[in-house]
């Protein structure tokens, strides 16, 4: 369930990235920040928060290698 939430939120963030609603908006927030630029800076912050949630909730388990490096060269198994 957690993974469904996280990957759905990633997809949603990608949808929100396409902000057609601010395309021609020339408002300056705080008098200096174009609203379209501020919005996308917000997307960057949202991405960081989302990835924080991802590493907290769906971090891969058992990813640290437990065996030592295989003795044989990886190239040795390739086709001739």
């Amino acid at each position, binding site marked *: *369930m*957690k*993974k469904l939430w*996280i*990957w759905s939120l*990633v997809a949603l*963030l*990608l949808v929100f*990235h*396409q*902000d*057609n609603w601010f*395309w*021609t*908006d*020339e408002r*300056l927030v*705080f*008098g*200096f*920040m*174009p609203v*379209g*630029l501020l919005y*996308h*800076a917000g*997307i*960057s*912050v949202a*991405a*960081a928060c989302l*990835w*924080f949630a*991802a*590493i907290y909730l*769906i*971090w*891969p*388990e*058992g*990813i*640290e*290698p437990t*065996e030592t*490096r*295989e003795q044989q*060269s*990886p*190239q040795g*198994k*390739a*086709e*001739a």
Partner: protein
Amino acid sequence: MDAAFREQFGELIIISFYLLLLLGLGLAASRLFRGTRNDYLLASHSIGPFLLLMSLFGTTMTAFALVGSSGEAFNVGIGVYGMLASSSGIIHSLCFFLIGIKLWSLGRRHGYTTQIQFFRDRLESDRIGLLLFPILVGLVIPYLLIGVIASGTVIQTMTSGAFPEWFPTSDPGTNGGVPNWLGSLATCLVVLTYVFFGGMRGTAWANAFQTIVFMVLGILAFHVIATRLGGEQTLLENLRKVTAAVPEDKITRIDMSKMRFFTYLLIPLSVGMFPHLFQHWLTARSASSFKLPIVAHPIFIMIVWVPCVLIGIWATSNLIPAKPPLPSNPNAILPFLVKTQTGPLLGGLLAAGILAAIMSSLDSQFLCLGTIFSNDIVAHYYGQEKISDRGQIALARIFIVAIVAITYLLSLFPQRGVFNLGVWCFSGFASLFPLVFAALYWRRLSKAGAYASILTTIVVWGLLFFLSDFGANREFAVTIGWGEKVVETMPVATIFLFSLVAMIVVSLCSKPPSEQTVGKFFSAVSLPKGGLQIGHKSPTMGDN
């Protein structure tokens, strides 16, 4: 030091001091060298979270991050942030999470050093290495050239006026500056020295240092330029005054195609296939080392890009002094503003910051190409067991020197279109993303499917590149129409789609990988808890 001397040589002295500092750092890192191939190429897998964050960020933020972002904002306005920066904040971390960690784990388990080793093993094909080798090298070389040429341009612009009798030019913005060829040569020699002696550890240290330098100095440049252009009492007043003077088309995206903006989202996927990032990933001490880069990367991008984009749009305002005139090359906008709006001391420091961004990418790429040549070609075919550890280090170093020399010599030829090639390089890498993703998450990916994907990428990329007049037509787009509606898409969308379809169709129609290979890559590693279940079922790609 009197004022006239400072004015004439200030930037040059600071840039020279900075380059010497980097040399010292690289040599200091080399004192920790353990004398093994694994230490030289992968820093003995000892890089912790902070150094990994800084080196990954420094490597992905190329000359384009500082110089190109302000130049593109000058051309097209604020839309460049959404197109290149916020999209990268999402997608780069996605690649670190889904691709980086998994490759790190497999690399540690099976002893990989390069991407080609991994693909040879996963696809049970030796020849796939011979196919990938020229593609990876061919796509990295223009990328390297951009950095080498940009460093020469920055040094020449920032030192203009230092030697008017020795290096006269017709352009007042560069007259008397250290010539391009010399600036590029100095940059190449500095990077070569710390990569040659320090290997991956020297590269990681230098990257971390340079990332801090360009982030701090970028913010400083933003503050100083705003103050100088605004001329008001407080920073907020200056920001308001300068931005209010920017034309409307630069604070909106009126002139930007929505569909091109959308399809540009595919470009950052190139990070998943960059050979130099593969090598950086493998340096991580543990999987947990990835956590900090995954979270902080989007924030770091924002810290660097927002000020640069604002500086770029400010350059279109009527507050910019008429003299000296703005440079015709948009990529010279930031160095020009730094030069004209700050004093020699700050100008020199800020130039060092721009060079830091450039060099923090060059070093990883030089090291990576040297590794690929020595590891995947010479040692692979001659026999790795026949070459001692020290012999392999010597071989990598020889290739690094050769690549730096070749890149530098290529940069001396007229390169009118090299900056336009950047997006084509990224498009090529991004179109190979399905291959690396499927290699990790789709058990059914076959050798034939991989060949089909790579060959389709080459053919479609080549065709579109030809149609774009070899990258010279910057506005080139693939148009799709239905009825009266016509939309423009980035070429990467077409190449990506063809590559993906070819890979899936041919894989399903050809012999699957052996059970031994499937067991090796899909049974031992469990992936995100409750997430992508490797070895049983991939929710992304469906059942086998």
